[in-house]
């Protein structure tokens, strides 16, 4: 995520996008803006910041200066201020491509892949040769589970910049995840040829080759990735696992141990070592590393089950049984969660088709099956808002959902709406602001937030949100075209 934001900022600054700067009425503001750009070109970010701030002081409606300020903040690592300045640029100039691009990056970084994709689609339509935008669009589409569309963008980016291996690496990873192994190998092989010193190309090619059963070739590329970047823990892990599957236990152990040394907080590394020790029949060693794996992640089913095995083989039967019980408990939770998920999905469909009674029953069943799962509380809250609009139960359910999954913007939005309907605008404000922190590109939520601001008599804030919503909606319409 951080990498994506950095990337976006770097691209925006002074390369890539065509300049579309419009001169402000205030000549002084224009002067400071130009001075800021000059400082930025020299890498003097502090000086640039001061100049852009002066430009804005003289001409608060100067969209470009706000955007430039945002870029500088991003360069200085102040993401909150960067985002704020970027929003301001967009409010002032809703069709501002650079600001939209940056805003999309922020949305994606916040987890709003769909929102980011919508904006980036619009940009790609306007600027079809902008390969980095296609790349970032592909990443957003991938996170939004639109895999085919993501691959299409990566292919287009690779065609635009055939010498850049990055697009082929991303394409290869995407194809491998779709189990299109041979295509993945082709793309990653091209990337490795384009840039033989790129450890990521070799590492990912190794993974794809391993997935095709070509373990010897995979090992070669893992080794090359390690040679290029000795601290490449993932490559060491890949090599270690390949060696484990080939039965080369000592060599596997050596690689996996190094991977664990590089990334000791990753429980997978300790679990992998545990697997090797189990094969080596070094049960006490296996117990030691597997205990470490489960202490790092107490819900790590595979490590618990390996630990049960290790205890059993070491003759520690009572501990083996306890570890096995832990596995069973975790599996039961997993199963109940799976059932609750599908019940919730089915109920949502029933709600759409008007079968509210059955949907409510299914949602209650889902809650009973997995009480720690937020979605059925939220869906039930929404359903009850329809059938019992004055009841307090929906608010309670939505609050519970938000507590269980504070990272879900849709829940905060629904809660905000429920509160607004009950005239509790101040509480609604908090929830909607929370929702927008999670999904900054969500125009509908911005509209509702504007409504809340208006109810609270905050006219300026309401107008500001309306403007931003309008910019986002315009981008969405353009992207849909």
């Amino acid at each position, binding site marked *: 995520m951080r*990498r*994506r934001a950095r990337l976006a900022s770097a691209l925006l600054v002074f390369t890539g996008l065509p300049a579309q700067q419009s001169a402000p009425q205030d000549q002084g503001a224009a002067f400071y803006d130009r001075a800021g750009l000059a400082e930025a070109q020299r890498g003097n970010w502090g000086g640039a910041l001061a100049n852009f701030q002066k430009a804005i002081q003289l001409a608060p409606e100067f969209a470009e200066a706000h955007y430039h300020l945002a870029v500088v903040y991003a360069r200085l690592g102040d993401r909150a201020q960067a985002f704020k300045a970027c929003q301001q640029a967009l409010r002032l100039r809703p069709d501002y491509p650079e600001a939209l691009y940056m805003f999309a990056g922020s949305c994606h970084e916040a987890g709003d892949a769909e929102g980011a994709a919508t904006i980036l689609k619009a940009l790609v339509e306007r600027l079809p040769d902008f390969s980095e935008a296609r790349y970032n669009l592909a990443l957003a589409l991938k996170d939004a589970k639109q895999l085919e569309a993501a691959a299409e963008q990566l292919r287009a980016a690779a065609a635009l910049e055939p010498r850049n291996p990055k697009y082929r690496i*991303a394409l290869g*990873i995407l194809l*491998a*995840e*779709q*189990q*299109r*192994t041979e295509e993945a190998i082709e793309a990653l092989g091209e990337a490795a040829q384009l840039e033989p010193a790129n450890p*990521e190309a070799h590492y*990912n090619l190794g*993974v*794809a080759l*391993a*997935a*095709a*059963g070509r*373990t010897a070739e*995979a090992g070669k590329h893992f080794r090359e990735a390690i040679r290029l970047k000795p601290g*490449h823990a*993932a490559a060491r*892990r*890949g090599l270690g*696992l*390949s060696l*484990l*599957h080939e*039965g080369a236990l000592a060599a596997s152990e050596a690689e996996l141990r190094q991977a664990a040394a590089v990334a000791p907080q990753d429980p*997978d590394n300790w*679990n992998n070592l545990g*697997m090797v020790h*189990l*094969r080596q029949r070094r049960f006490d060693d296996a117990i030691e590393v597997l205990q470490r794996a489960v202490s790092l992640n107490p819900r790590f*089913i*595979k*490590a*618990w*089950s*390996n630990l*049960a*095995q290790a205890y*059993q*083989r070491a003759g520690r*039967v009572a501990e*083996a*049984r306890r570890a*096995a019980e832990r*596995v*069973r408990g975790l*599996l039961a939770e*997993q*199963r109940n969660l*799976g*059932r609750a998920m*599908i*019940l919730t*999905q*089915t109920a949502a*469909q029933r709600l759409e088709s008007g079968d509210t009674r059955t949907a409510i029953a299914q949602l209650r069943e889902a809650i009973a099956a997995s009480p720690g799962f937020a979605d059925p509380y939220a869906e039930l809250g929404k359903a009850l808002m329809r059938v019992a609009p004055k009841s307090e139960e929906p608010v309670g359910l939505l609050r519970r959902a938000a507590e269980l999954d504070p990272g879900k913007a849709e829940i905060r939005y629904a809660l905000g709406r429920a509160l607004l309907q009950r005239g509790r605008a101040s509480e609604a404000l908090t929830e909607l602001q929370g929702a927008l922190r999670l999904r900054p590109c969500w125009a509908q939520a911005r509209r509702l937030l504007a409504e809340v601001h208006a109810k609270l008599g905050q006219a300026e804030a309401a107008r500001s949100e309306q403007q931003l919503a309008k910019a986002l909606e315009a981008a969405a319409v353009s992207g849909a075209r």
Partner: protein
Amino acid sequence: MRAAAIALGILSSLGMVLWSVSPPEPGPTVRFADVAARAGITFRHDNAASPEKYLIETMGGGAAWIDYDADGFLDLYLVNSAATEAYRPARPLRSALYRNNGDGTFTDVTLPAGVAAEGLFGMGVAVGDYDNDGLADLYVAGYGKGILYHNEGNGRFADLTAKAGVANAGKWGSSAAWCDYDRDGRLDLVIVNYVDWSVANNLYCGERRPGYRAYCHPNKFRGQAPTLFRNQGDGTFKDVSAASGIGSKPGNGLGVVCFDYDQDGWTDLFFANDSTENFLYRNRGDGTFEEIGAVAGVAWGENGEIEAGMGVDVGDYNRDGWPDLFITHLDLELNRLYRHHGKGGYEDATFRDGPGYQTFHLSGFGVGFIDFDNDGWLDLFIANGHILDNIHLYHPNTTYAEPKFVYRNVEGKFVNFTSRLGDGVLRPRVSRAAAFADYDNDGDLDVAVNNNGQEAELLRNDGGNRNHWLQLHLIGTRSNRDAVGARVLLWADGQRWVAEKVGGRSYQAAHDPRLHFGLGKRETVERVEILWPSGARDVIEGLRVNQVVAVKEGAGRVPVAVPQLRLRSAKADDGP
């Protein structure tokens, strides 16, 4: 780095793959030819496929070898499904019994035999002489109920389900097995049950795009515990699931095998569960069982993978005298070989001795440790076929119909031999049950396969009898007549084989009741020792190879208890 994180996920979760076949290894010239049509077996399974994607549509139907007319040739029973609320076939669906004419052809005798199981959405099938009258009876497991067909001895069967009390009503029986868990000389019935799916609780799964609706994962429903019916000796059974402990834990059960895992003389039960832990129930010898799958190392795979257990078989593949296990799983998982380490449990030998990742893109169901080339080492036959009929939409490299895979055992290591065995193996099918038997009595093991929504296959083994063999037909007296649970030790040329007459095996299938030993080029069998479930012991010495030998408990070798076999093989038969 983002790229690194993603790709690492692939390696650890998807693993390495191949279903291209290994380079040919030197070995015997054996072919499996599909002779079903030629033999008159026209059965086509109907899986009642519907747009509602009922889970029962995925399971296939069973296959069983049963010598129902006791003429010495094994007949074939194939299980079918039934109409559902979403599928109304023009004609009622029927299971089928094909009588083996003894000349390579079969005749459909379903209706006169009375075993059509019409209206039953059938699943697995088990064959056993539960009343010790010398005639093989049938139990057909199914969705919502099962049927017990008692062999009347006149070419007909009677449905005695209600009288016997083995309907297994309200449960979704998948596979079944006969075994004598309490060693009282009577076969008991074990049914492995799946999940609580019903039309009423059917769900929409998969993507909401045309053509993408998919069958739901079984974990979307509640698992069902297995059922154990104790044979009371008067034609009735008592459900002892709860009292015995067998019914204590729900699991999405699909495969079952009864065998004595710790060789303490008491039959234990293994259940292959789909996406839940497998169960190994150790028989305490007092009518109760203790579930020890996790501590015995067979509840899940190496690295703790909980996989979609389908079929299971047991056999001593490395000839160390201990019973090993092989379990088939769905694609993106591994078929697992569990080696008995002789200290009360198992270790996962999938990579050390087994197929490793080679079956990663295949969905295995029916499976058998069979010595197809009679070289003295148990090979592996795996029938494959995906669950989702639209899997290509989700995984472009995966297909619904898949080839079978056969691994030749080269002194304890499995080598892919699929490409050498002919079209009968290579032709992609949506295979489910695989039942193993020497139906043509030529000394090598053939395979019947029931394919989901497709024609059944009869894969005749041509060439397996170039090596020598011996088959043992065991007849219990104090023990159950089928001798399920008997353990046999055989010595030839100074080497030893150990085998057990187990109940169940494979997936929804029943097999040749004779114990089959491949002997390579060995000309004589020095000694055969049979340890009967009753505790009795019989020893026979000095047997010639290439024959069926009948042994009666307490009486030793006896004239064959079934009519004279008409061997097609050119090999001499010096049997009685």
